[in-house]
C-alpha cells in the first residue's frame, strides 16, 4: 500500500473519531447568557463590598490615628482608659465602627440563615475576608479598651476567619461548627447589643 493511500484511508476513518452530534446552539446560548448574568451580579456584589471595605478601613485608620492623638494629654499621659473620648475628633471613628458592626451583623445573620451545609455561598467568604481587616483595625483602636467589646471583637475575628477559609465546595461539618460557635458564645446577641441604637450615623448608645 502506498503512503498516500494509507493517509487517505486514515483520514476517512478518522472522521468517525468522536463524531460530534448536531450543535446544541440554543441550549448552550441560554446557559452562556445565564452564566454571564451570574458573573456580572457576582462582580457587582464584590465591587460594592470592596468599595465599602476600603472606605471603612480608611475612616477607621483615620479615627484610630485621631483617637491615639487625642488620648494623650499635653505631657503625653494617657487619658482614662476604657471609653472612647467623646470628642468631635472621634466622630469619624464612631461612624465607621457602627457601620462595621452593622455589616458584620448582617453577614453573620445571612450566613446563619442562608448558608446551606452542603454549599455555603462563596460570597460569604469574600465578605468575611473584607471584614477581617477591619476587625483587626478595631482591635487596635480605642474600642478595644472596653473589655466586653474587645472580647466580642476577638470572637468575631475567629468566626470571620473560619467563614473566610471555608472551601468553595463547602463542608457540612465546618458550617455546623461555625453556627454552633455563634450560638454557644451568643455572638449575634452580643453583636446586636453593641450596635448603637437609633437612626443616623452618630449613634451614642450601645457599646460605642
Amino acid at each position, binding site marked *: 500500500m502506498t503512503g498516500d493511500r*494509507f493517509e487517505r484511508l486514515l483520514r476517512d476513518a*478518522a472522521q468517525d473519531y468522536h463524531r*460530534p452530534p448536531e450543535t446544541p446552539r440554543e441550549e448552550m446560548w441560554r446557559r452562556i447568557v445565564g452564566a454571564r448574568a451570574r458573573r456580572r451580579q457576582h462582580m457587582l456584589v464584590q465591587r460594592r463590598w470592596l468599595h465599602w471595605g476600603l472606605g471603612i478601613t480608611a475612616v477607621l485608620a483615620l479615627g484610630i490615628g485621631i483617637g491615639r492623638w487625642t488620648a494623650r494629654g499635653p505631657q503625653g499621659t494617657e487619658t482614662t482608659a476604657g471609653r472612647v473620648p467623646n470628642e468631635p475628633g472621634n466622630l469619624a471613628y464612631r461612624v465607621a465602627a457602627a457601620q462595621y458592626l452593622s455589616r458584620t451583623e448582617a453577614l453573620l445573620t445571612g450566613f446563619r440563615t442562608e448558608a446551606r451545609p452542603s454549599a455555603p455561598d462563596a460570597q460569604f467568604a469574600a465578605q468575611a475576608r473584607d471584614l477581617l481587616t477591619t476587625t483587626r483595625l478595631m482591635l487596635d483602636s480605642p474600642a478595644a479598651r472596653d473589655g466586653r467589646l474587645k472580647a466580642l471583637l476577638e470572637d468575631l475575628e475567629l468566626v470571620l476567619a473560619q467563614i473566610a477559609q471555608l472551601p468553595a465546595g463547602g463542608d457540612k461539618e465546618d458550617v455546623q461548627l461555625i453556627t454552633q460557635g455563634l450560638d454557644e458564645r451568643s455572638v449575634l446577641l452580643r453583636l446586636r447589643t453593641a450596635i448603637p441604637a437609633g437612626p443616623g450615623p452618630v449613634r451614642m448608645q450601645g457599646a460605642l
Partner: protein
Amino acid sequence: MDERELIARVRAGDGAAERALYDAHVDRVYRLAYRLAGDDELARELTQDTFVRAFERLASFRGESKLSTWLHAVATSVVLNGLRKAKRFRQRETDLDEATGISGGPPPAEPDLKRRLAQAIDRLPKGYRIVFVMHDVEGYTHEEIGAALGIETGTSKAQLSRARGKLREALADFAGEWVS
C-alpha cells in the same frame, strides 16, 4: 456586517451582535471541543466557557489577527485546561472503580478499524493528538493550529507527521488487509 463592526457592537453590549458572533463560530468551537473531549456534556461546558471568556476578553482583542483565529486560541486554551481537569477527575473515578472491582468487561475480541483507530488516536501523546484532530479531522490549517496553540507552523507539521507515523505503526496489521 463586517468583522470590525461586529466587534465594536459586541464591545458596546449589543445583544444581537453577541448572538451573531456566537452563531458564526459556535459550530467549529463545539466540534473541536467534542472531538477532543469525546463527551457531549463536557464539550458543551467547554464551548460555553469559551464564549463566556471570549465576551469578557473581547475588549483586549487588538485586531492583530482575525477574530476567528483569536477565538480559536481562546477555545483551545479553555478546552485543554478543561481536559486536564476532567482527566484528573476521571482518574479518581477509575481508581475508585478498580478499588471496588466494578470496571468494565474485557475488550471486544475483534475491534474493527475505526475502533482500533480511535484507540490509537487516544493513545497518542497529547500534542500529537491535538494537532492530528485539528488538522486531519477538523480541517484546521497549520497556520491556524500554530496560532491557536502558540507554536510554530513547522512544529505543527512535524507533530502531525509523527502522529501519522505512530498511527501507521499502531495499525500495521490492518495495512496488510488494505493492500490485498
